[in-house]
């Protein structure tokens, strides 16, 4: 029997009726058409499907959608502010942090959760946080550099915002 699911996805409230067996990734990709979230495994072991739920990076392929009822979900489509890329996205581009790009939304969403918690991570901290993310293309080092570059950009952005506030 279908059940009601109320979630906020990328800032928009959504109301759906789903089979209880539906996984969060199915809601995101199939019901909402947000195909930026990818799946690369059937064993919960690649993290390509990572989205942020209430600030936490989680694997959307391994969560019953009903378990996120009432929560906020952020997917890669919700990161950019209007026409402006998020600094993490820009840093991924500028550092060649992806090749095929298939694992990228997962890496970016995990980075978002990481930098919200730890705004200035070391190489080792980035490695620890992103360790579950399989990438067959990059060898990871350029991703790691992008994450740390993103941290710098976010910091710079905040400083500019603060000094602008100060100026006013």
């Amino acid at each position, binding site marked *: 029997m279908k059940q009601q699911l109320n979630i906020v996805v990328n800032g928009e409230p959504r109301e759906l009726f789903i089979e*209880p067996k539906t996984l969060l990734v*199915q809601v995101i990709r199939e019901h909402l058409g947000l195909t930026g979230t990818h799946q690369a495994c*059937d064993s919960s072991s690649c993290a390509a499907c990572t989205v942020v739920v209430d600030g*936490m990076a989680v694997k959307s392929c*391994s969560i*019953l959608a009903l378990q996120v009822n009432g929560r906020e979900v952020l997917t890669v489509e919700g990161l950019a502010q209007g026409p402006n890329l998020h600094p993490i996205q820009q840093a991924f581009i500028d550092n060649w942090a992806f090749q095929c790009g298939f694992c990228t939304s997962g890496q970016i969403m995990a980075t978002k959760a990481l930098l919200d918690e730890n705004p200035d991570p070391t190489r080792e901290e980035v490695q*620890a946080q992103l*360790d579950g993310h399989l990438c067959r293309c990059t060898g990871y080092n350029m991703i790691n550099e992008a994450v740390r570059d993103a941290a710098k950009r976010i910091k710079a952005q905040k400083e500019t915002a603060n000094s602008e506030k100060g100026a006013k």
Partner: protein
Amino acid sequence: MKTIITDFNYLAAKTLDEALDLLCKHKDDDYRIIAGGQSLNTAMKHRLLTPEYILDIKGVADLDYVRFDEKEGLKIGALATHRSVELSPVVREKYEVLREMEENVASIETRNWGTLMGDLCNADPAVDPAPPLIALDAEITVSAKGEERTVPAEEFAVDFFETVVQPGEMATEIRVPPLPPNTGVHFMKYSQIHGDYALASASVLITLDAAKEQCVNARIGLGGVGVTPIRAKKAEEVLKGKKITDEVLAEAARVASEETSPISGIEASADYKRELAGTLVRRVGKEALERARRA
């Protein structure tokens, strides 16, 4: 990609009482408890499990805690995620070994949603929390409607992917006693790839006498080297009452590896795992000893 194709009846509890009521009601049905679902959903996708009922306890807020008091020690509720244990200030302060263990469980995404209790209940023989909980002399509370019992950590798993939890029951709390003075604990797992399930893991607790000379108590938990995590009791005896030297540790390691009964797999043979368990006991024991001296 795979999805869950077998329908189930979904029932969610919001409190422990509700959960126990549901369990009582569906005791004789083909049901499964779901906590974070980090292991269960994959099993259902692969149709290894096709339960008729799913009893969702993820929302049972009164079991989502990590608490400490000096008398009773640490209490971890069944719905505490791996991550909340890892980040808990009191764990960091009093049970550093649990934080060290948590940092290498699966990946952060799994730890954010999956529970420590769910990991124990899933009962993979290489489950990481078991060896340190065994070494720490932890107990697990198993509850049914109107009933409650406690089980020592080393007796919780009874076979491959099977625990003492019976139909109508659920595991509700992990209790870790306060550490005695002059005690050091350490845990290590070995896997070729970072963050993988352990090929073998070991946790050793050593308590020294007031002079920090003799070992007055030792506990050893091992993972991945049998159908369940095990406690290496004979090896503990080797350490107890002795001044621990490299030789004593080596002897304890040898005895510990004899206590294992690993199974050959694609990654390594039983012989290798047996030897690895010994190596880990020696290395972990050495660090536990150092910690006990510093404690």
